[in-house]
């Protein structure tokens, strides 16, 4: 297998084999080492389950926590599916426990416990259950940090059955409610399984152990375990009690979330920092024995982990500047203590480049056909393009006649009315599939049409979200029905960046989570009125992020007409602008542009209309 290639990844060697498939050490095209899990084909026989997993994979790929093994992407590989994960050098907790002959040193166990609880709380806050917590799924890296692996994978395999798959149930870490399919499995089931793992770490033995699986099941269902403190002299009572609460038979009697569990086990030794230690310079730059780290942006929905901090030291929050993290080098195994503060929303450290020409107060008009609010963009010049990228060159003064452009993106509700009236069938509907990005890979997904842009989630209840999974042809058809047109690229760009040639609709500061839906922070489109703070000087919203927007022009490069440019006469692809909820800040720059064929439909593509006159 070592000469093999799976997708874009070159296999280096085997990392093992589990119930769901095999795990390989592999090299990504970037040269980065990754772990690649190939799911057994029979695990994925059930297409409905695979579809669900695709959906969950998108959330999994966004989990970003120091104690969760990062999922990078998920892609089909022949009949199999491969999950690409962060490669973690270290030892499975299972092996550590075996090597320690059961009982781990207290500080090590406490550190693992605290980090695991933080990671699971974070995952559950983001709607992800693990469903297969066991020591073999907790990796301890080379400096002692926990890394939880295989989030959500058990869900796929759990649906497999005897005749379609090697469906195996390991009963050692199975909560009692799992034996009754009519009962709900939620985070409290994960809490039970983690309680069993902690029992092993702190008591040096499993609470229920026998060769007969029926005996173990019986104990799970009926037996109250002996308190761990009975086996280990000096084990803090709060830890022993907390483990027993986690192992209550009735989920209602357990901790209701991981934070409660974490609080109950206490703080450990006040002189020890149990939080994750930094391992690379990707987050930190060493300056002597101090390190300054720029804090990441707080995503709107994807909650950031609570980082641990040394007790008694206040967390600095410095308004008006990008916050810093100070990492103090301390001696011994626990090398660093990290303190994190958050960037203040909407505040930028980047200075504006030019004096602003402030336009008059935006003029808004309601269009009579589709009742959209349109903003008036007055006649005049603006700076189009940039010198940054060849595709954006040249930077040019362009003059446009006055025009109107939709203040908001076209919504599902608007498109629904259009379809009802015209019986229009979109390009994706003709094909019953559209493009969806899973991890870093694009895939044509069956059923991905404007009514369910990612092929899984329906737009029901999302009337005010931008319509997406829309081709150029679809967008143009709507605009023409509404007595409007698609904006030319120049019209779009002027509406976005204003007369001053701003880099972004709101100015020249980089986007953040209050100005745009971008960088996969939320992982899905958001209602078209959500980012008022990111509107352009003319009042247009979502000119950066949320979904890409089609422009009328065929794609071309080079010098444009100085007045009212409309792009090349012919072409193969049309321009799209604005970036999307998945793209990073570069794509959100107003001069940024991309291009696609007129019938290309993607869950990232939507539109807004423009017109020269309103009757």
């Amino acid at each position, binding site marked *: *297998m070592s000469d093999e290639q799976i997708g874009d990844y070159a296999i280096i060697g*085997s990392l093992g*084999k589990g*119930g*769901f*498939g*095999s795990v390989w050490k592999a090299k990504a095209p970037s040269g980065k080492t990754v772990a690649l899990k*190939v799911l*057994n*084909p*029979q*695990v994925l*026989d059930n297409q409905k389950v695979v579809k669900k997993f695709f959906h969950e994979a998108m959330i999994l790929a966004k989990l970003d926590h120091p104690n969760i093994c990062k999922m990078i992407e998920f892609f089909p590989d*022949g*009949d*199999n599916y491969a999950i690409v994960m962060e490669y973690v050098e270290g030892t499975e907790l299972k092996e550590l426990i075996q090597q320690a002959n059961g009982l781990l040193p207290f500080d090590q166990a406490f550190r693992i416990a605290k980090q695991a609880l933080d990671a699971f709380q974070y995952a559950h806050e983001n709607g992800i259950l693990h469903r297969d917590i066991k020591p073999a799924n907790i990796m301890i890296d080379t400096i002692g940090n926990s890394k939880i692996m295989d989030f959500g994978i058990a869900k796929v395999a759990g649906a497999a*059955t*005897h*005749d*379609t*798959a*090697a*469906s*195996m*149930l390991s*009963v050692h870490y199975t909560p009692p409610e799992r*034996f009754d*399919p*009519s009962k709900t499995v939620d985070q409290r089931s994960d809490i039970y399984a983690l309680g069993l793992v902690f029992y092993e770490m702190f008591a040096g033995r499993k609470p229920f152990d026998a*060769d*007969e*699986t*029926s*005996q173990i*099941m*019986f104990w799970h*269902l009926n037996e109250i375990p002996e308190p761990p403190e009975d086996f280990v002299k000096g084990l803090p009572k709060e830890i022993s009690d907390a483990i027993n609460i986690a192992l209550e038979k009735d989920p209602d009697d357990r901790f209701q979330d991981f934070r409660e569990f974490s609080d109950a086990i206490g703080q450990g030794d006040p002189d020890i920092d149990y939080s994750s230690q930094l391992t690379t310079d990707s987050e930190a730059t060493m300056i002597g024995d101090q390190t300054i780290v720029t804090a990441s942006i707080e995503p709107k929905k994807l909650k950031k982990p609570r980082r641990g901090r040394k007790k008694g030291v206040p967390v600095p929050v410095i308004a008006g500047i990008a916050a810093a993290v100070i990492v103090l080098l301390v001696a011994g195994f626990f090398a660093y203590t990290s303190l994190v503060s958050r960037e203040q929303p909407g505040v930028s450290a980047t200075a504006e480049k030019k004096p602003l020409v402030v336009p008059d107060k935006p003029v808004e008009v309601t269009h009579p056909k589709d009742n959209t609010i349109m903003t008036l963009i007055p006649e005049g010049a603006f700076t189009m393009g940039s010198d940054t990228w060849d595709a954006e060159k040249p930077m040019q003064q362009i003059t446009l006649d006055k025009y109107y452009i939709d203040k908001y993106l076209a919504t599902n509700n608007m498109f629904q009315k259009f379809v009802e009236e015209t019986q229009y069938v979109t390009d994706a509907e003709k094909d019953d599939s559209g493009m969806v990005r899973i991890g870093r890979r694009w895939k044509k997904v069956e059923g991905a049409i404007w009514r369910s842009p990612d092929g899984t989630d329906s737009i029901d209840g999302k009337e005010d979200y931008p319509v997406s999974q829309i081709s150029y042809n679809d967008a143009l058809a709507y605009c023409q029905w509404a007595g409007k047109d698609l904006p030319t690229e120049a019209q779009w760009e002027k509406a976005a960046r204003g007369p001053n040639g701003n880099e972004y609709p709101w100015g020249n500061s980089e986007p953040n989570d209050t100005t745009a839906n971008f960088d996969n922070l939320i992982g899905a489109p958001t209602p078209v009125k959500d980012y008022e703070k990111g509107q352009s000087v003319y009042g247009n919203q979502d000119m950066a992020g949320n979904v890409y927007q089609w422009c009328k022009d065929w794609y071309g490069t080079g010098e444009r007409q100085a007045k009212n440019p409309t792009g090349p006469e012919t072409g193969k692809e049309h321009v799209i602008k604005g970036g999307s909820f998945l793209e990073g800040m570069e794509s959100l720059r107003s001069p940024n542009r991309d291009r696609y064929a007129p019938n290309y439909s993607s869950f990232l593509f939507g539109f807004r209309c423009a017109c020269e006159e309103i009757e």
Partner: protein
Amino acid sequence: MSFVTIGTASHIGLRKEENQDFFAYNAPEDGTVPKEGILLALADGMGGRPGGATASRIAIDVIIEEYYKNIESNSILKSLNKAFLKANEQVMAKGDEDRSFQGMGTTLVVVVLKRNKIYYANIGDSRGYLIHNNEISQFTKDHSVVADLVRAGYITEDQAPTYPGGNIITKAIGIDAELKVDTAKNVKKTRDGQYILLCCDGLYREVPDEEVLKIVKEYQEPDLICDKLIEKANEHGGDDNITVMIAKIDKTNRLSDLAGRVINLVR
């Protein structure tokens, strides 16, 4: 002297695209019974194509080869255990060698008839039954979640057949390197007029024990019984592959003309 008559049948069923079951038994052509005994083995493969069928075939091939190669005359059960572990190893090795076979597995139930004794071992939920006079009883232990829940006292035997997740097994050949094989706790004695039935879940999920018993009593001859059982399973829906093997213990060699199919078992 008793004689053993063996009948077998396997059918794809009415819903599956492939028969992933496999079975075999040793049938010395000269009619003599080897001192190692007569071995009957049945496997129900799991996994997508081509995994399941491959796993069951490998398991059966290996079990027969290994059992007779490494027989320990004083311990049939030890030999069976070793052969099971070898089969497990070989199925796993095939998965390692070729990714399209990864994760395949199989159940395996094996009976050895030697002198007047019935030795057995099993993994998964394929079963062995003893049928005598008006009684039918399962002598193997299912390795399935539902069977464990019955043993744990959580559900009753009556609830088991319809309890959700009935087809989730807890052990299989080819999945876990640390396999613990269930070998017979109580070796059974053969009795004249007794039938030993090996079958996969494609039979017992469709045909209730009473109907099996009725068919055995009505048709008496192993081959005929096997055909009728498959017919009946398909009448009931034929949701899965169906494989049955029957060994009939008899005092008289009534079918001795069927060389290789009727074996005298020296007492």
